[in-house]
């Protein structure tokens, strides 16, 4: 036999044996760890008087990861207090920081103040919305005001009306990045209407405002109305029988009032 081939063969055999030996070693190590864990668990159970297999909230598996078993799960807590930032205090903080050239801190304080004002605007608008729409009642727990305090996504106000399987979701967005998309629809003649029966959107007017109504078999009706320069109100109706019913629901909202509260012209 060629001595070179013999040498290569021997090296390969040694490598294979090495790999097998390593695998065997790791198996032995794993088994030893499992046995040690079991012994420890047994001791701990004897001390705490828990004769069951596992303590509540702990991992009852064989314990390939020894740390996952020792963490209790959270069963509840007070959550976070959602108090809007104090506008007056933040304006004072901004002034103080500004006077000492702390522009970064001044900026943060102004953002917090703006967040506070936006939350107040949002809550004011929520109060002005109708309690019921087309026999659907408002869902208090779904009322939501979201503000980033820095303009881009701006202020978003959400309200939900529900009865059985019929639902109307209302979203009012101010300083919204979505505005440009909707305005393209409204301004661009290229989005012409079709007459072949596959029309799934069209332009309409809601209380004198230009709007777009869309229909989708799975999600239902969607009505978008830009108000003023940078605000948009969207209604999403699930299980509404017809376009007319959807428009009637939208007509119960005081669009001029919302526009005024948002400071739009």
């Amino acid at each position, binding site marked *: 036999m060629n001595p070179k081939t013999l040498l290569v063969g021997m090296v390969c055999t040694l490598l294979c044996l090495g790999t097998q030996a390593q695998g065997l070693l790791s198996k032995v190590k794993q088994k030893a760890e499992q046995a040690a864990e079991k012994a420890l668990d047994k001791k701990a159970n004897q001390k705490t008087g828990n004769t069951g297999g596992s303590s509540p909230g702990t991992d009852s598996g064989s314990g390939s990861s020894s740390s996952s078993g020792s963490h209790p799960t959270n069963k509840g807590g007070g959550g976070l207090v959602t108090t809007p930032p104090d506008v007056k205090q933040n304006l004072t903080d901004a002034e103080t920081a500004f006077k000492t050239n702390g*522009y970064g801190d*001044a900026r943060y304080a102004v953002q917090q103040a703006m967040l506070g004002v936006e939350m107040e605007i949002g809550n004011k608008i929520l109060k002005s919305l109708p309690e019921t729409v087309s026999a659907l009642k408002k869902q208090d727990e779904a009322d939501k005001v979201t503000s980033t305090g820095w*303009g881009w996504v701006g202020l978003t106000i959400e309200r939900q009306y529900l009865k059985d399987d019929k639902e109307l979701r209302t979203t009012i967005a101010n300083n919204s990045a979505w505005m440009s998309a909707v305005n393209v629809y409204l301004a661009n003649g290229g989005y012409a209407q079709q007459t072949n029966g596959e029309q799934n959107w069209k332009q309409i007017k809601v209380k004198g405002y230009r709007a777009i109504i869309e229909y989708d078999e799975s999600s239902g009706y969607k009505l978008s109305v830009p108000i003023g320069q940078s605000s948009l109100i969207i209604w999403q109706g699930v299980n509404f029988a017809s376009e007319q019913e959807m428009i009637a629901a939208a007509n119960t909202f005081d669009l001029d009032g919302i526009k005024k509260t948002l400071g739009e012209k």
Partner: protein
Amino acid sequence: MKKFSIFLLATLAFGALKAQDFSKNLASARTAYGSGDLENARFSMQQMLNDLDIMIGKEVMKLLPAKMDALAANTKNDNVTVNTGLTGVVIHRDYGTGDKAVDVEIMSNSPLIASLNAILSIPFIGNSGDGTQKVVKIDGYKSILQKDVNSETNKTGYTLQTPLNSTLVTIKIENTTEADIVRLANTIPLSDIAKMVQ
């Protein structure tokens, strides 16, 4: 010297003007909020943010070196742009002329930050196999260095991007070496800029 004095005076006058604007807008915000006019209070606060952004931009500009090697800053091109919201403040300065010129751009609230941080956190993505992209450290901050060979001139340029929280510092040179761009970038006090824009 005369030119420099005029520039200094103009800068000081601009700073004073912005400080006045801030105080004026602060007073308007307080009055509007006190009278329950929330929308006008909000508008005044947006103006305050603009004023602050410009002032922060000017302060950051002062931190940038006056020279990079032999390349002097083209102060007439210094620019601070504020777009409240989407991209925040964009601070621009360039040094020298021609293909050796250095472009420095600092953008707060940059939309690229998330993707750059993702690249930086996964080492095998940050360093590409073909050598066009690698992760380097500038003033202790992890940065992405990208090589770009111009197919027409055959010159090798580099772009260095350093994320500082939500701010992105980009340095671009059309014709340079990796060692040179890293050395020049190290003359920018990134830690001080990070403190200023945070």
